[in-house]
């Protein structure tokens, strides 16, 4: 075999095998090689450049890399090699196949012999035709070829390696700019992160797995501006840019486009999601308003979890974990299929609370749980199936069930609750050319009760049964008119049915929405996005059906290829939850058995409103492996839905028959008359420092002020002024994986409703100072048997024990071992 042939073959075969090797963030690493390669080619260093491109391809196969290699060979006067790579590119069935096929035919005509897809049969005369390749380069390439040949031999000695990714079907979205980070959450279609009209952060599945963390909320700490407040092992509240609270309700969590927002309460159960983290492909986080596309509740941000596509990833994966404090769990994920692709998973997880509020055998309190130590238990199963009729038409079905037990820290005078019950969903997606239909059903059935109740006091245990049915149609079309437009038009309707002891008999609401968005690329560096959404809510007009409108305008300028500047104006809203509209409960006054506080819903609430101005910059220096994300925002928040003070009831209504107690007063959900301004800046930097090493750091600074006079401003003092996160992932060449991250949050003061300790019939709002805290997580992993087995030790909350809310658990260390097997 000639040296040229061997080099090409070695490079290509090695590239096929490289996915089995180690990368911290494969995309970043591949992008760095790709950019370096293209720069070298532009400098006339063809072979060096192509070796970089092949390196990139080896890390993460992308058809357009093959195209670029082919183009480079063709431009360098080496048609034989060019033909090899054009043919490989055509194997991926690209959109421009016809055009490329013509090029290939021309090249075949030029070439004296037909070239096989794997190795060109003809000895290329590259030295003559490429005089720019000097002797030193030839020597270096020869050395590289030898090294790769050895790698090939070593690889061939292994057991069968996973099939290269290009053997899998390639979606049209895969033919974008190679290795450019893409997101779908920002515009409901795949687009480069640089083009996104929002501040957006992507956390890849690789990052999640490398962290070893088992809670999505913990992982979100690395998002600049994210506020993650751990209350218990499986109880967390997440917000962005301020306004976090017990039962945080201003961030929308989507799993494959299906909301996990519990409509009855307005909360997301971050600790007991229906899918395991090992099933996640990536998480896209929109920091800032998302109502223009997602409607209600996407007020401060959207967390869009995208799971691995059915049939992708390992065919089987087994995970197990065990650690201190009864932490244990496991999962099995199977993925495969040909015509009908599927992913099926089952999982289990359990763990004790960080701390218990009370000891056993208290003479005054009783635990309502069978196991008062338990903080989390979840047994889940999911099945997703996908079938493509052809390139344009496909259907997907998914369903899951989750038997769960978790904690929840409720509002007002209520404290630590447990939810014990069943969650389930079913979802159907149909894609037909430019039209997509989606239908889902979310179901929850919980027994909810305070984890501890005073002996002798009326119990607040309740049960809730909810069903949400949602249908959406989406039409997307690209056309040219004074530039390029990508238009999306959507219609949706949602039926919510809630039966809950706290709100009375079965209550239902019908919602509807329509939205339109146009991304207009006026000229190449300039894109104007305009979105408008209108939501119909059955109560928004003083208890009658009303409308909430959410416009968004965003301008993205990309003066240079990897740099984007962004300015946007948007509004967003959060609609009243069932709790806020219909609540009707009597909370016993602690220590005064004969008295209760009536908490009432309000059907005339206005939605919470956000007006947001944002500027941002996102830049990538691929050759250095650095990505910079900078955002500044100015948010004006109105009509926050809060609990009013406890006002006396009319004396004639003082005795409450249902509770057989005297009503100390009534607290009504109401719109806060105060307007708040939140200003802040967020900086995130990632650095692919060297092969296998990713370093990440972010900082967020914010200030929340009340625009009017107020003696005590809860939203102002509860928002930490500074949040810092830093971490790294290092996948060493010796199969040892290291990762760690640190989050620091400055001190806050929480204004929470409490009965006066001196006189419980006096309901007060004392200020509870909360000290600054640091969260440290780390993982040490080791890969065995060609990465088929990974063992790891993970430590979470390794920093000093602390509280993240005055009523929350005293968060402390968890250490556990993990085992992952991918047979």
């Amino acid at each position, binding site marked *: 075999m000639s040296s040229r042939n061997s080099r090409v073959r070695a490079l290509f075969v090695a590239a096929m095998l490289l996915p089995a090797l180690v990368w911290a963030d494969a995309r970043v690493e591949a992008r760095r090689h790709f950019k370096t390669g293209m720069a070298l080619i532009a400098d006339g260093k063809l072979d060096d450049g192509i070796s970089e491109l092949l390196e990139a391809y080896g890390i993460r196969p992308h058809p357009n890399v093959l195209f670029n290699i082919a183009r480079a060979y063709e431009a360098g006067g080496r048609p034989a090699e060019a033909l090899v790579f054009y043919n490989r590119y055509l194997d991926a069935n690209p959109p421009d196949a016809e055009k490329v096929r013509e090029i290939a035919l021309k090249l075949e005509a030029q070439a004296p012999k037909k070239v096989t897809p794997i190795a060109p049969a003809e000895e290329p005369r590259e030295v003559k035709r490429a005089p720019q390749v000097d002797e030193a380069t030839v020597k270096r390439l020869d050395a590289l070829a030898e090294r790769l040949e050895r790698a090939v031999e070593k690889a061939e000695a292994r057991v069968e390696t996973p099939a290269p990714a290009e053997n899998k079907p390639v979606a049209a979205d895969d033919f974008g700019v190679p290795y450019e980070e893409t997101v779908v959450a920002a515009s409901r279609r795949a687009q480069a992160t640089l083009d996104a009209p929002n501040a957006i952060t992507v956390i890849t599945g690789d990052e999640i797995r490398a962290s070893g963390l088992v809670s999505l909320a913990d992982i979100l700490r690395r998002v600049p501006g994210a506020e993650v407040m751990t209350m218990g092992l499986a109880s967390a509240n997440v917000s962005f840019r301020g306004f976090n609270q017990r039962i945080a309700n201003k961030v929308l969590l989507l799993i494959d486009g299906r909301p996990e927002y519990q409509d009855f309460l307005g909360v997301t159960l971050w600790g007991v999601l229906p899918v395991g983290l090992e099933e996640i492909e990536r998480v896209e986080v929109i920091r800032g308003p998302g109502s223009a596309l997602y409607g209600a509740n996407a007020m401060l941000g959207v967390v869009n979890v995208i799971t691995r596509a059915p049939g992708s990833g390992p065919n089987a994966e087994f995970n197990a974990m065990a650690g*201190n*404090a009864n932490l244990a769990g496991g999962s099995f994920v199977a993925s495969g299929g040909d015509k009908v692709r599927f992913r099926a998973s089952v999982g289990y997880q359990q763990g004790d609370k960080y*701390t218990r*509020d009370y000891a056993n055998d208290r003479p005054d309190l009783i635990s309502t749980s069978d196991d008062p130590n338990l903080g989390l238990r979840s047994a889940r199963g999911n099945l997703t199936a996908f079938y493509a009729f052809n390139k344009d038409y496909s259907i997907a079905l998914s369903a899951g069930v989750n038997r769960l037990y978790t904690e929840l820290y409720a509002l007002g005078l209520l404290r630590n609750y447990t939810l014990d019950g069943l969650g389930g969903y079913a979802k159907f997606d149909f894609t037909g050319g430019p039209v997509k239909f989606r239908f889902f059903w979310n179901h929850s059935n919980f027994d909810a009760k305070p984890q501890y109740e005073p002996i002798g*006091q009326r119990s607040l245990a309740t049960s809730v049964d909810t069903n949400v049915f949602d249908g959406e149609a989406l039409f997307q079309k690209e056309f040219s008119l004074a530039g390029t437009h990508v238009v999306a038009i959507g219609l949706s309707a949602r039926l919510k049915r809630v039966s809950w002891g706290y709100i009375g008999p079965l209550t239902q609401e019908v919602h509807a929405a329509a939205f339109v968005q146009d991304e207009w690329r006026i000229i190449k560096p300039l894109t104007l996005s305009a979105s408008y959404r209108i939501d119909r809510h059955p109560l928004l007009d003083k208890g009658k059906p009303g409308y909430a409108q959410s416009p968004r305008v965003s301008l993205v300028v990309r003066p240079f290829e990897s740099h984007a500047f962004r300015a946007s104006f948007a509004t967003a809203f959060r609609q009243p939850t069932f709790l806020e509209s219909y609540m009707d409960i009597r909370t016993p006054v602690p220590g*005064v058995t*004969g008295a209760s506080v009536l908490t009432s819903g309000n059907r005339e609430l206005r939605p919470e409103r956000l007006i947001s101005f944002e500027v941002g910059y996102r830049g990538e220096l691929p050759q250095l492996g650095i990505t910079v994300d900078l955002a500044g925002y100015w948010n004006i928040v109105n009509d926050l839905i809060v609990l009013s003070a406890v006002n006396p009831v009319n*004396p004639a209504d003082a005795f409450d028959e249902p509770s057989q107690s005297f009503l100390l007063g009534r607290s009504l959900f109401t719109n806060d008359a105060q307007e708040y301004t939140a200003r802040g800046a967020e900086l995130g930097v990632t650095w692919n420092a060297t092969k296998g090493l990713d370093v990440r750091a972010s900082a967020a600074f914010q200030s929340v002020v009340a625009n009017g006079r107020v003696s005590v401003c809860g939203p102002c003092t509860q928002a930490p002024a500074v949040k810092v996160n830093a971490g790294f992932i290092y996948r060493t060449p010796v199969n040892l994986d290291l990762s760690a991250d640190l989050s620091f949050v400055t001190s806050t003061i929480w204004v929470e409703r409490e009965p006066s*300790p001196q006189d419980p019939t006096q309901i007060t709002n004392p200020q509870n100072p909360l000290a600054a805290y640091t969260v440290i997580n780390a993982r040490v992993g080791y890969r065995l048997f060609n990465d088929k087995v990974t063992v790891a*030790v993970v430590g979470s909350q390794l920093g000093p024990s602390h509280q993240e809310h005055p009523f929350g658990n005293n968060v402390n260390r968890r250490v556990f071992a993990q085992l992952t097997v991918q047979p």
Partner: protein
Amino acid sequence: MMRLMLMMALLCSACEAPPVFAGEEGDERQKGPALGRIEGQVIVGTATRGRIVLFLYDAARPPPPVGTGRPLTFTVVSRESVFGAALDGDTGPFTAPFAFSLRGPGRYLIRGFVDSNDDFIPWYGVTADTTQGDVGGAAIDPVTRASRVVEIGVDEAGLPIPALDVPVSFSDAAKLPVDRPIFSVVGGMESVMLNGQPKVIELQATPINEGVMNQPTPAFLVRFVDDNADGVPDDANGDGIPEVWPRVVVRKIQTGPNPLIDENDVDKNGIVDAVGESYEHSNAPDDDQPDVVVLAAGFDVTEYAPALVDAMGRVKTTPTAVPRLKLVLQPRAFDAANPTAPQPIRAVPIGHYAITVIQQTGQTWRVPNELGLEDALRPVGLPLVSSQSFVIKVQ
């Protein structure tokens, strides 16, 4: 792999129950020390129907008529749980459980009543008492029939010991014959000035039937005090004037717009504030401690005296209901912070004073009260009764 298994085994061996949150600074209210509870049963022997309201008092501060203590907490036993489907006229006894939760160690008294007309509302002074037809009850010693002190003790580990199986008895013997001693001052005055001379004002029992106030039969239940049951009226302070029921307290109130707050009891818990107004005592060095200023005052029952004794001249054991009483106000003030040994104050403190009448049944009425407050201060739903804003002024 062996190392992995060993590591997992070690980790699992470290499994343990989560620690109990010790309670950190600022969080004691949420996760503070263990408290106790009191549980028992109400035992009701009456044909009167209604929910039962139970009050818990500090044994050191008993309620009227013995003292002026205010309840620490209260609970309700539903009519349904006590009487169920009992037939009218059935006098029981009926029983039902009750509980006072989250109580710290201490000694307590329990009082209660069957609210026969569902007019008790604990949040306002004018509605937070028994009315005619209510049946009183208390935790009493089953042997001595004396009031029982219920104690939440502490065990060796420092944990409170709940008081369990506490009986609270109700019977028609404690049925209230009249409404509260609602009164107004005869003459329609808004106030009366006390300026160095004794002053006599006349209190008129005044029915109020408006809104939630439905007390048509107020009266003063008058009798001579005869605690030693010797048939002779007691004269405990030796001033030569027999003591009578009802008692009266004329106490200085806080200066300000809200006349419902007694001076040096801003939190209205019946306990003298730690910091407050102090006045110079006549016969003792000034202690700089907040004072409970009361005026020397008493009812003049001369006109009713014949009716208060029997044919033998002995004190009647049953009171006589009268519609009017003369209240004699003396220009002398005392510090009653220690009610068993009131200390004279050198000069009568300037300010406003409220009149509280305490019946032997424990029923009380105070003027000024919520019914006399101006609209902005008066709780919504309570009627305006102008006579209830009366105050005694000292200048």
